[in-house]
């Protein structure tokens, strides 16, 4: 398995909207905490260390541009 970086969410607008809605009414600190919990939950779901390493790297953007 490789990290999927092509579109993979059937309803992108729906997901994006849900993500923002989840932060509605949260303070900055609460939002940061929420994001951290979300990253941990998603990370556990993926489980595969190699894919997670790719994702950690991909999120840096810089290393993709070289």
């Amino acid at each position, binding site marked *: 398995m490789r990290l999927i970086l092509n579109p993979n969410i059937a309803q992108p607008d729906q997901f994006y909207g849900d993500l923002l809605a989840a932060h509605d009414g949260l303070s900055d600190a609460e939002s940061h*905490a929420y994001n951290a919990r979300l990253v941990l*939950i998603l990370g556990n779901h993926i489980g595969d260390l190699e894919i997670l390493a790719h994702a950690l790297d991909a999120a840096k953007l810089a290393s993709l541009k070289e």
Partner: protein
Amino acid sequence: MKAVFETPLYPYQRHADQDTDEPQRHHVVIVGAGPVGLALAIDLAQQGIETVLVDDNDGVSLGSRAICFAKRTLEISDRLGVGQQLVDKGVQWHLGKVFCDTRKIYEFNLLAEDGHRRPAFINLQQYYFEMAMLERVRVLQQQGAPLQLRGGNKVAAVLSHHDHVSLQLDTPDGAYALNADWLIACDGATSPIRQALGLDFVGRVFEDNFLIADVVMDADFPVERWFWFDPPFNRGQSALLHKQPDNVWRIDLQLGWDIDRDAEKRPENVIKRLDAMLGSDIKFTLEWVSIYTFQCRRMKNFRHGRVIFAGDSAHQVSPFGARGANSGVQDADNLGWKLKAVINGSAPHDLIDSYDSERVYGADENIRNSTNSTDFITPKSPVSRIFRDAVLDLAEHYPFARPLVNSGRLSMPCVYDHSPLNTPDAMVSGPSRTRPGAPCVDVALCDGYLLQRLGGRFSLLLLNIDSTIALEDIDEAIDQVVLDASLDLTGALSERYLGSDSQAVYLIRPDQHIAARWSTFDPLAIASALQRALAGGSLTCV
């Protein structure tokens, strides 16, 4: 009543070495009678190697310090003849609870696997550990073992030569000189020997202070390990409560970086903090209080010619995960048989270099683990704090997050996977936990335990091997341990040592680590594996 650690147990006595014109030369001089120096001295004494153990003090560790002793340490202590005494005195515990604020977020059980003689951990004051070792030293001496213990002997100068080391020792009667073929520096984290030789000791200091208190109280708290993140009685910081023998409880309170250490150490302030933690209705007395800053660091190399460093002098970790004394005892275990083989001329000096490579590897593993724990317990940046708190919040609700909570990963023995002493694994489907480099895993047999039959010398473990095979072809330096299925009551022997094979041969080092294994009996292969295990990497092709 005087505390044990205030009683002189090996007071200074003048020795004939102090009255000779020329410095006397000894095979091994060990500096420091802490847990590591004592363990090594006993091992060498049991092997008949002439040794002098010196310490500037004359008693056991001041205050408790180490309290958790891991199974591997107990197994090594069995070989040194003190294991049972430690287990009889120690407190066994299985349940750990983790709290955040006022909520219990989860608990864990150190479910011990069946078939091990020793528990995963015991809690025992370091001074009891050292006392048991000192008693063993006395017994060995009475039996004529060539071991001397000299209290009140302080190493004041060290000079390293190519084939020996010369020392100057200060005593109440003045200074005298000694020479040693090998000098083993077990002189603790501040190692005067390391400093005298100008050697490095680099790593990380954690900018935090911990108040460590041992209190005596008759409280009916259960025998469990309780760890708090951010409790009401120590806001924003962590706390630990753990039971030791004699109704002594270990309390660790994180204090933060900018504190007034002298004020914090004053009994009235300590008592105020403990009242807040325990409830003011609990009566206790303070046995010992200290404030620590923790570091994780090691020397680049543990061997410098004829000077070898072991224990805290070579590497230092934060106490989360109980790796200091536990790893130092593994150093001693690793070094003892190698020194013996080199001193007796059955191995080249390169064998000592494998002590360096194996234990540097072990130290890195311990430093990594205790650094991870320390970073979790005391997050050092806003974002690491956010993730830490997220893990704690999730752990209360979802099992997946519990393994991420790190309040100290308990010390496990090191597997020397890349050791030059290993012969590549020749058992295709052998169990991974008993691969070359690993310490032998214990198994209950119908008449005792496997580990009781191993160690001290090289052993050949023969499992279901036809006994008509010509075992006389095997080097007499190797003990033979012949086992078959009839001794394997629970099937654990076959599960841990055979896997899907029907028979196996293991070559096991004197420190119970596995050097090689095969699924068939081949005397030539055994001989060359033994040669490799003694060559210490100087053998390039076999």
